[in-house]
């Protein structure tokens, strides 16, 4: 099953919950962090289109 591995956000208030949250100041920095986390966690980055990037570890890949 897919599992949220991490969240990279621009707005600390917009997210909460069980996954590690990374707060960044700019969209550019957010992309960079998400890129690194993708390689580190082997999880794919998805854009929720509200300034939040979520790293999801898909079960069978």
């Amino acid at each position: 099953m897919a599992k949220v591995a991490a969240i990279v956000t621009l707005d600390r208030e917009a997210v909460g919950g069980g996954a590690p949250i990374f707060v960044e100041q700019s969209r550019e920095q957010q992309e960079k962090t998400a890129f690194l986390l993708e390689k580190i966690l082997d999880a794919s980055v998805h854009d929720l289109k509200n300034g939040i990037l979520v790293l999801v570890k898909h079960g069978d890949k």
Partner: protein
Amino acid sequence: MMVFLAAHKQTIGILLGVLAGVTARLYMLHTDYRQYPTYPHGRIIHISLGVIAAALGAIAVPALFNKDYTAITFLALAAQQFRDVRKMERETLTVIDRLELVPRGATYIEGIAMVFEGRNYLVILTAFLTSLAAIVWEWYAGAAAALLMLLAVRKLRSGKSISHIAAAEAVQVRQDGPDLFVDDIYMMNVGLTANQAIIKERGIGIVLTPFNPNGKATIANLGQRQAILYDLSTLLGVFRDEGEPALVPLAKLDMKDGRLAIFMLPQEKDVNKAREIVERVPILESAVRMPTEAGVNHKEGRASG
């Protein structure tokens, strides 16, 4: 010479049977682009098993002629043996599959394993009929039976391919922000602009349109889809590495009309070749569904295919 042939009828029969069986096995043993069975040791294993199968089939006939009826139990032993072959192939492939960038999938593996078992039975049958004809009639009757069986084997060897059930078409890969579409079918959400750029540069898309409900059910099968992705990746190479989950090839269904969209990043970007490869992907026996054969669908008249 003729005296010798008459005197050693059973020996000649056995020899002919073994020869025909081994020839049939060699004929069916093809190492193609999938490189399976692996060369040379995988082939040696299967040729040896083929020789054993041929010997079993050929020897059964004289055993029965000599009223040695218990000899038939050897065939049961053979069946057990070849079921083990299937198990062995399945296990090996399943273990190897975990280390593939794009796995074959369980359905494909089961298909391969089934073929190995089935072909050994064909070898037994070929050897049996050849030696039967040679012993009951003459050696040339055996040779004729062998030829007939080889023709039958040739017919059984080739299965159907995707082009029999669906039309493949090369289409545009479209990106709308993070959303990725193949034609008008939604594939996935790609968050990173770096990955979006790679997809824009290298992505190819193919849409399969099934001809009838049977084809629709077959290409919807996850194992069949994985087989398509595996063949594409093997032949075109795949632009991907471990730890790059966003670049994995995908096949998604348009649930409204049963079309299948295929997205992948090949090493060699050639959409037409990709389309041709998809058309030639074998239809997996275990993925075939025939809803039109069901009683409830017969009232409307039978669909073809």
